[in-house]
């Protein structure tokens, strides 16, 4: 309660502190950039920065969706497998069938149909998982752990274990094209992040996401349809995974059944590093973008510094823990 003795100054100070709490991931990111640059000046070359951002885009797109899911206290472990399924669906459409079984002279469809197939596959799979979470009352961890296995199995079945490669240049543009100096995947990521940000902060649905994550029972009692919000949220991450699968297949010029393996953990790490709480209710897309970039910078920087492979794994683990510990520390101080 603000009593009479509180001046505007103390309030302003409180706000500044809260801001600092939000900035923690950014500060950590900048620190990392400074260290890497001082050890290897080439790190800051524009080509390297664009490399990093292009690499980040693929899982960054999913991380935006994961932000929604984690905000409602959910989790999605199936995204990696979904990336593979979506990529293969797109590939099948683009090639007019599974390689070999159809004519291989490229009697396929336009890339837009391929993209649509990927997005549909992702969204439908996401919605199905959302329904299982909402209606069967199975914890999201279990549903999407099942999904991880199921969708990988489906991806393997579609591609018969292999990959489908060789798309039209227009298709490939989505993964390798440039607009000016800016890679196309980065633009896709930026658009997805912007939409995600607006939805979360400015719409009723977005605020319901926060309410459900903050206190699901209270949300129910306030007349929020918790099940619908839950299902929609998993639909969103499914859509994002589908989009990411399409862009990845375009970038690789190949849709692999093993694509996206392990993405779930990278993506969740990015979201959490960005300050979104696994307990739901706090966080947002801006943090996630920073978290995703931080993850990308880390991987790129360690390679540039010639860190031996095993050491790299150890360092990545330690730095991720340090990033989140730093965030937690700053937040505690600024409370």
């Amino acid at each position, binding site marked *: 309660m603000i009593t009479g003795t509180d001046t505007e100054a103390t309030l302003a100070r409180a706000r500044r502190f809260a801001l600092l709490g939000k900035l923690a991931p950014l500060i950590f990111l900048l620190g990392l950039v400074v260290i890497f640059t001082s050890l290897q000046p080439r790190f800051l070359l524009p080509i390297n920065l664009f*490399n990093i951002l292009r690499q980040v885009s693929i899982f960054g797109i999913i991380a935006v969706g994961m932000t929604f899911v984690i905000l409602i206290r959910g989790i999605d472990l199936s995204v990696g497998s979904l990336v593979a399924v979506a990529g293969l669906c797109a590939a099948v459409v683009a090639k007019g069938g599974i390689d070999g079984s159809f004519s291989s002279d490229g009697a396929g469809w336009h890339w837009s149909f391929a993209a649509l197939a990927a997005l549909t596959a992702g969204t439908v799979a996401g919605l199905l998982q959302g329904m299982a979470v909402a209606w069967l009352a199975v914890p999201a961890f279990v549903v999407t752990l099942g999904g991880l296995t199921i969708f990988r199995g489906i991806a393997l079945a579609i591609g018969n274990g292999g*990959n489908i490669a060789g798309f039209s240049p227009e298709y490939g543009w989505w993964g390798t094209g440039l607009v000016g100096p800016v890679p196309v995947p980065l633009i896709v990521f930026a658009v997805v992040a912007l939409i995600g940000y607006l939805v979360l902060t400015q719409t009723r649905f977005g605020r319901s996401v926060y309410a459900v994550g903050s206190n699901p029972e209270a949300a129910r009692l306030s007349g929020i349809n918790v099940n619908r919000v839950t299902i929609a949220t998993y639909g969103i991450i499914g859509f994002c995974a589908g989009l990411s699968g399409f862009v990845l297949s375009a970038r690789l010029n190949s849709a692999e059944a093993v694509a996206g393996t392990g993405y779930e953990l990278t993506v969740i790490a990015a979201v959490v590093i960005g300050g979104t709480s696994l307990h739901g209710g706090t966080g947002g897309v801006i943090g996630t973008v920073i978290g995703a970039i931080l993850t990308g910078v880390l991987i790129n920087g360690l390679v540039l510094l010639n860190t031996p492979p095993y050491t790299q794994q150890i360092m990545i683990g330690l730095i991720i823990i340090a990033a989140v510990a730093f965030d937690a520390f700053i937040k505690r101080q600024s409370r």
Partner: protein
Amino acid sequence: QSEEEVTLLVSPLSFAFPHFVFMVEQMEDEAALIGNVNIIVADGQLSSPKQITDIEAAIVQGVDGIIVAPTDADSLAGAVRMAIENGIPVVTVDRPVNGVPDVLANVAADNYIGAVAQGEQVIADFPEGATIVNLQGIPGDKTANDRNGGAHEALDAAGDSYIFVSEQAANFSRDEGLSVTENILTGLGDAPAVIIAANDDMALGAVQAVEARGLTGQVAIYGYDGSKDALRAVRDGTLAGTVDQFPGEQGRTAVRILVDHIRNGTVPESDNILLAPIAITSANLDMAERISLIGE
């Protein structure tokens, strides 16, 4: 002969497979032999995007040459092309990348051909036909697919007397090779004559399952890779055979070609140097690359 310093990026598809660990060790050894050659290694972690990331970073770093064992023949084309466009010569090992004709050379011992050799060894040992259990690698993994395909090609072509009674994935791990084989043996009732595995670890797991069931000597088990453990087992008779695709030789050759090209502009006579993988049994154990490492 110029002695300028040369830095190479080596990017194997995974550092968790002894096959590639050995290959890279041999490369480092060769580099030391040549002199003034630095080798940087990056772990592909079985992921195409990760390997692309590593190659892109190496380009930024300005390495002199790249040796890559690609996770996938199609996916890495873009990154390899980019390296070449930036004036960095690339040699592929283990398998080629598709659609990039400017690759300096591909030094490989084809997994598919090696698996054909594995299958043919089975046919040679069991001319009358056999019931076969097939332990596959990680589903969807390129190596696993090739090895599975090659074995099938040889054995399917050999007629109806070669019957695959069970085919299961055991993910290249000894742990799963053991437990999956245990489960298969129970399910089959009659022990199979042959177990083929897509790597030595799974084969050695199968050896233990067979031993535990008291079937030692009744089931012939074939691995793949020619690892130290497998060669010992072949010597001791617990493993019927394995396949050597000479990772060390591949690695050494790749380093030689690349360094030669960077220092002297030499272009190799052929841009596709294929080593023929061979099946190793107790009869030709001395032909295995790692035979000197297994001790007595």
